[in-house]
């Protein structure tokens, strides 16, 4: 009798525990999904920019997914780099304008030909490459892009972007 009672109570305890665990996991999943970016936020993630109006060594800042996008038309004197986006005979630097250290916006110093981040002193050259020995661990990131004539669609992955990804130039 006592043994039987104990067995029944153990079973009830385990059944209750299992139900509570399933409910708990479900609630955690719902809580996680509630904090995910909303579909409307994700859908607004495409921006088209026109590169034909850009002037050499003059930084243009566009906006994509709330982040600043640096567009710099390179002068012939500036070093070529596989990170350049080539349209006709023009070469462009197009990157997300956030320091890869902690996400501040570096300022472009036109005369020194470099991007300087005021937060922790990071520096990037006109190809977006970080200067070694400073806090930023990697070059400025290139956003997903697709070339469309003289226009660039940000958020869409064109063949040139996929080639850069495959070559490990950006993440």
């Amino acid at each position, binding site marked *: 009798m006592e043994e039987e009672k104990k067995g029944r109570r153990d079973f009830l305890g385990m059944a209750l525990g299992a139900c509570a665990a399933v409910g708990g996991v479900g609630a955690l999943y719902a809580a*996680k999904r509630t*904090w*995910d*970016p*909303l579909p409307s*936020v994700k859908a607004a*993630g495409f921006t088209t920019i026109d590169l034909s109006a850009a002037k050499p060594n003059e930084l243009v*800042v566009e*906006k994509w*997914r*709330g*982040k*600043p996008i640096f567009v710099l038309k390179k002068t012939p004197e500036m070093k070529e780099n596989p990170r350049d986006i080539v349209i006709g005979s023009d070469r462009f630097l197009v990157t997300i304008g956030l320091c*890869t*250290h*902690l*996400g*501040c*916006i570096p*300022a472009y110093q036109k005369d020194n030909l470099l991007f300087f981040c*005021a*937060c*922790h*002193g990071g520096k990037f050259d006109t190809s977006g490459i970080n200067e070694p020995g400073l*806090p*930023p*661990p990697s070059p400025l990131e290139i956003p997903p892009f697709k070339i469309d004539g003289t226009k660039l669609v940000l958020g869409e992955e064109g063949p040139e972007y996929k080639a850069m990804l495959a070559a490990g130039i950006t*993440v």
Partner: protein
Amino acid sequence: MAHFEKANSLNEWLDQRIGLNTLKRVLNTEYWIPKDINFLWAMGMVLAATFGLLVISGIFLLMYYKPDTNLAFDSVNYTIMSEVGYGWLWRHIHGVGASIVFLIIYIHMFTGIYYGSYKRGRELIWLSGMALFVAFSAEAFSGYMLPWGQMSYWAGMVITNLFSGGSLEAYGLVEWIRGDYVPGDAFLTRFFMLHVLLIPLVIIGLIVLHFGTLRLPHVNNQEGADIDFEEAAALYKAGKKKESKVIPFSPVFLSKDVFVMGVYFILFFYLVFYNFDFAMDPVNFDPADGLKTPAHIYPEWYFLWSYEILRPFGKDAGLIAFGIAQIALFFLPFIDRSPNVAPAHKRGLFVVWFWVLVIDMIVLTAMGKLPPTDPTFALIGQIAAWTFLALGPVLVLITMFEKKIGKGV
């Protein structure tokens, strides 16, 4: 069922139902505090009172604040500051209180370290206190987002980016915390929830725990003396108050606390009425702009020391150093190997260690405020950061060889 008799007073009526007299005895009139203490022992109640002021001023701010990226900035800087009657008072109490509460927390912590109040039975007091420090930090950070000025936005950007884990590139986690690619409406509203509900609940729970951890080991005293509380209490209750080494928490100790609080609140309200600017960063009076970083981003003064530990290293090393700095103080009761519960000046090298820690944290704080461009200051910051990291192992060494102090003095 318990036996109930007709009560002759409200007190008796309540005593029968919720054990009021027992409660009073355990928590107040027979909760014994050593006599051998000084004004630093009042900081706990000063903190409790300041937290109370923050809650009250927060309740009034809550009535006009709008957690919406389009409305938040104006609801604070226009509606509350110039339209709401005495709205400025609540905001200045809240802003000054948030800043001063950290000053008192640091004094409270360093008092505990100086007198060895985290040892031999008092470990949980220290651990629950450190948990409170973390909860207050989260509360301060989430509150700093709410006016949605430039510093709110960029502090939110930088701090949430820490969760990408350096080279782990966990941007999915960062976007999940923000609910967006950048701090936006979802971010502001969820930090509003954290600031006004979830974290305050956690803080209140932790305060109860912190008080609870004090009850059995009792508070420490100036000499770290091992008091026989039962004997001392018996003396006090027998009317030999002079001979007894203890006083009851209420009303005797509390009346000392109230005096210190009186002095403290004169200073506090002087700041609220005449010198509130130090708690209001001028950059945060520009509305948030995701396309313009302020020239120099720095946290409020109470976070500067840990921010400076992050700064001089590369991304991953900086994150690791920062992580260590955030949790290092939790381990204090376990890395202090000395059995002595005594004030630092009686513990040989420990007193040197203590003051090096204090000065190092002040140097880190000062360097954290300066722009990163000056190489001399960057070097001083780097040395101070390394010093902080080295202080842990050094403490283990010096306390292992610390001479045991003979008791009975």
